[in-house]
């Protein structure tokens, strides 16, 4: 079986190379048969990579330790589900998984465009095949998943215990899906540049891919944060570590891209900006892989310095230079016709929201590579930690939130003072009064007061938007309220799904602000029967119980939680785990989550005789809302992606009509009342 996987990867590489050659030859010599053949080659490539993945999974499930990879990342005692997730537990496997996703997405794109986009699709598929060649080259020559061990060990080294967690089972696939699916819009953008077909066909045909990618990047970041919160035991969920930043930057840029393409579709502006953003998003996915594999940037996660770094850097540089060259080559055709007419316009709000997002991404990038820069310039490595990121991104986030409120309500082109007042009076009152209430409740930090006011302001604008749409429906088709609301969302799913995502972002933002500013913690070493307090809670340590299994030893503390009035609320059981292979301790946190605050109890240590225990307890207000906001963002994205009959019809018209007049190209979602 492993031999088969090895062979399949070699064939896949040959097929990817063939596909590029056949595509280009077919287009240049006008031989459609070769273009068809190139497409078939991509499908076969996908089948080959699938065989390799199945081969590795089979080896993992059968604990075939003759394979180096299986011996390094699995064991006979590993639970089956983690044998499956071991596929992406190590470097070779995770690259194979990446390549698999890429080949699947490439195949889907090839299928979607088998009749559509005859001019740019073959080039886009050639770009996708080019990316696949890089990854398949790595898998065949540099970091091979199917290497054998000379001596077969009786037992494997096991998967790192920290990764034996359900969030870790779903976090990497989500993030990879987000990373890899960004390649499709990138490839179409590149194809538009290569062919000079620079209308927005490339954007339209990959809009769903972009949203899909954004969706999985969102999920990936959320799952990662949740994993860090539940598993790492430091009470937080985000530490601005380079690895986290590597996942966050593409998300920021994709967010900017999803907004700015709306301006191109409406106003035919920002062409060069959109092409740059999608290039940047793709480059950042490679950059993320580069910094996590190369060891040039130190992280507490001590990266395996695997020698992959130079390959990724070289590929990144080639892709970047080629893309910039294309942008320069086409720059005459990319000039946008006009300035926007007024700062008080939706175009301006969208453009500035883009600049804020890219500004945040740049700040994160700067902070991430700062040690390398300072070492090159000043000869000493200077790091900037979480305070840097919070200090820079905090104010920028406020600007972004403000624009989230302004953008959707303000008119395209220009807005009169009268109009502004009408639209924004209620949200502004809501925002200001929320700030006053917060101050009256004793909150003194200016940042928190501003953040809460702005959050309320944005919520106000979204409510106004929904009400406008509902009222319009009630007048036009005289529907009752609830039905009007449902129909409003169903008929304009992109627009109103987008607002649901905005609500999610605001809810998450409030969670982040609350948990960042008001977290308290207590560290205490206690004997059984002792108690200590945090906030209004009293915690009493009842005792330890120890259990041993084949896989691990567990020490669990029982901690009784009492309210201020002495009533018992619950008993929490944080534990400490000692894995036997590899010998490594781990922490299992006990969390009691409520919408007001999370009580987070860590059994930080037990003494050798097993009498006293050290606890670290965090009381984190509002962190619940971060996860709730994440769920709302998921819901909103599902609404956005829901198949929409009108939109499909519109795409069909554009694609068959090849350049309908600009007036007809307004997306379906803008047909909703109130926006224009």
């Amino acid at each position, binding site marked *: 079986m492993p031999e088969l996987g090895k062979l399949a990867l070699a064939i896949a590489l040959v097929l990817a190379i063939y596909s590029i050659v056949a595509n280009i030859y077919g287009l240049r010599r006008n031989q459609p048969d070769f273009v068809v053949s190139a497409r078939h080659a991509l499908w076969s490539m996908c089948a080959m990579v699938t065989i390799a993945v199945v081969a590795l999974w089979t080896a993992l499930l059968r604990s075939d330790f003759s394979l180096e990879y299986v011996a*390094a*990342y699995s064991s006979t005692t590993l639970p089956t589900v983690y044998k499956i997730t071991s596929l*992406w537990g190590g*470097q070779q496997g*995770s690259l194979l998984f990446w390549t698999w996703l890429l080949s699947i997405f490439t195949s889907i794109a090839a299928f979607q465009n088998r009749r559509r986009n005859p001019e740019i699709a073959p080039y886009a598929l050639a770009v996708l095949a080019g990316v696949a060649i890089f990854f398949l080259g790595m898998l065949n020559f540099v970091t091979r998943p199917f290497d054998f061990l000379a001596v077969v060990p009786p037992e494997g080294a096991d998967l*790192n215990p*920290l*990764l034996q967690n359900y969030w870790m089972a779903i976090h*990497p696939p989500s993030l990879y899906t987000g990373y890899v699916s960004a390649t499709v819009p990138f490839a179409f953008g590149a194809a538009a540049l290569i062919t000079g077909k620079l209308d927005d066909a490339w954007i339209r045909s990959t809009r769903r891919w972009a949203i899909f990618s954004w969706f999985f990047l969102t999920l990936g970041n959320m799952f990662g944060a949740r*994993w*860090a919160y539940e598993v790492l*035991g430091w009470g937080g969920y985000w530490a601005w570590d380079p*690895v*986290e930043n590597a*996942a966050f930057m593409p998300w920021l840029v994709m967010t900017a891209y999803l907004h700015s393409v709306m301006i191109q579709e409406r106003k035919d502006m920002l062409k060069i900006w959109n092409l740059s953003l999608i290039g940047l998003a793709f480059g950042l996915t490679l950059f993320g*892989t580069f910094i*996590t*594999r190369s060891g040039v940037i*130190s992280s*507490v*996660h*001590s*990266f*395996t*310095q695997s020698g992959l770094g130079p390959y990724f850097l070289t590929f990144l540089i080639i892709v970047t230079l080629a893309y910039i060259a294309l942008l320069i080559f086409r720059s005459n055709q990319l*000039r946008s016709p*006009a*300035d*926007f007419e*007024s*700062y008080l316009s939706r175009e301006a709000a969208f*453009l*500035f929201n883009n*600049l*804020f997002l890219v*500004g945040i991404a*740049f700040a994160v990038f700067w*902070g991430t590579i*700062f040690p390398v820069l*300072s070492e090159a310039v000043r000869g000493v*490595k*200077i*790091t*900037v*930690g979480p*305070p*840097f990121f919070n*200090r*820079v991104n905090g104010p*920028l986030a406020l600007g972004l939130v403000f624009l989230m409120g302004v953008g959707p309500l303000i008119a395209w082109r220009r807005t009169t003072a009268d109009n502004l007042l009408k639209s924004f009076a209620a949200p502004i009152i809501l925002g200001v009064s929320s700030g006053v209430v917060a101050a009256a409740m004793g909150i003194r930090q200016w940042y928190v007061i501003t953040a809460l006011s702005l959050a309320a302001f944005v919520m106000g604008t979204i409510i106004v938007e929904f009400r406008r749409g509902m009222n319009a429906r009630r007048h036009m088709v005289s529907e009752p309220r609830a039905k009007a609301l449902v129909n409003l969302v169903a008929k304009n799913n992109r627009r109103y799904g987008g607002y649901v995502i905005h609500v999610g972002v605001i809810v998450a933002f409030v969670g982040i602000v609350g948990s960042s500013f008001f977290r308290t913690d207590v*560290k205490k*070493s206690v004997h059984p029967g002792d108690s200590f307090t945090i906030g209004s809670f009293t915690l009493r340590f009842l005792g330890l119980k120890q259990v041993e299994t084949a896989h691990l030893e567990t020490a669990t503390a029982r901690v009784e939680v009492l309210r201020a009035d002495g009533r018992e609320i619950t008993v929490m059981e944080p534990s400490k785990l000692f894995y036997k292979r590899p010998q*490594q*301790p781990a*922490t299992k946190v006990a969390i009691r989550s409520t919408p007001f605050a999370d009580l987070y109890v860590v059994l*930080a*240590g037990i003494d050798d005789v097993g009498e*006293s225990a*050290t606890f*670290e307890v965090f009381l984190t207000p509002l962190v619940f809302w971060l996860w709730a906001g994440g769920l709302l963002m998921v819901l909103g994205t599902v609404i956005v992606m829901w198949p929409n009959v009108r939109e499909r019809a519109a795409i069909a018209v554009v694609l068959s009509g090849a350049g309908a007049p600009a007036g007809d190209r307004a997306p379906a979602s803008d047909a909703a009342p109130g926006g224009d």
Partner: protein
Amino acid sequence: MRVRPRFYFGGALIALAVAYLIFSAVRSTSEYYLTVAEVNARQAELGSQALRVAGRVKDGTISWEPNSLTLKFVIVPIPDPAAASPVQAVSIKAPADASFGVICVGQPKPDMLAPGRDVIVEGKLGADGVITATQVMTSCPSKYQPKQSQ
């Protein structure tokens, strides 16, 4: 190409704001990231500068007092991985000249802290050559795969 003053003015304003925020935040939050050997070489000039020191925990030096949450250990330079033979044991003898005591009060002992493990110590170097740490971070074992780890 038509002149588009609104574009450029608004864009420049935001770019300046970002640049200013980055500049001022770098000044106020930067920490020197040094190895034990570098701290040793620059000892005189470091003063009360915030430091992040990468080193390896010396065998037999860890002391942990749970009641007062006091952790003490000694760090030595991390040997150059290129020079190390692949079968080298976890703990490695370090040159005797570069080593610093670390004291960290009020934090729980990290799970992974063990002799021979690589750590990053955040804190300040005192006149007595002891690093008073606010935080001790342990590097995960080398097989730990960063892509999965967030």
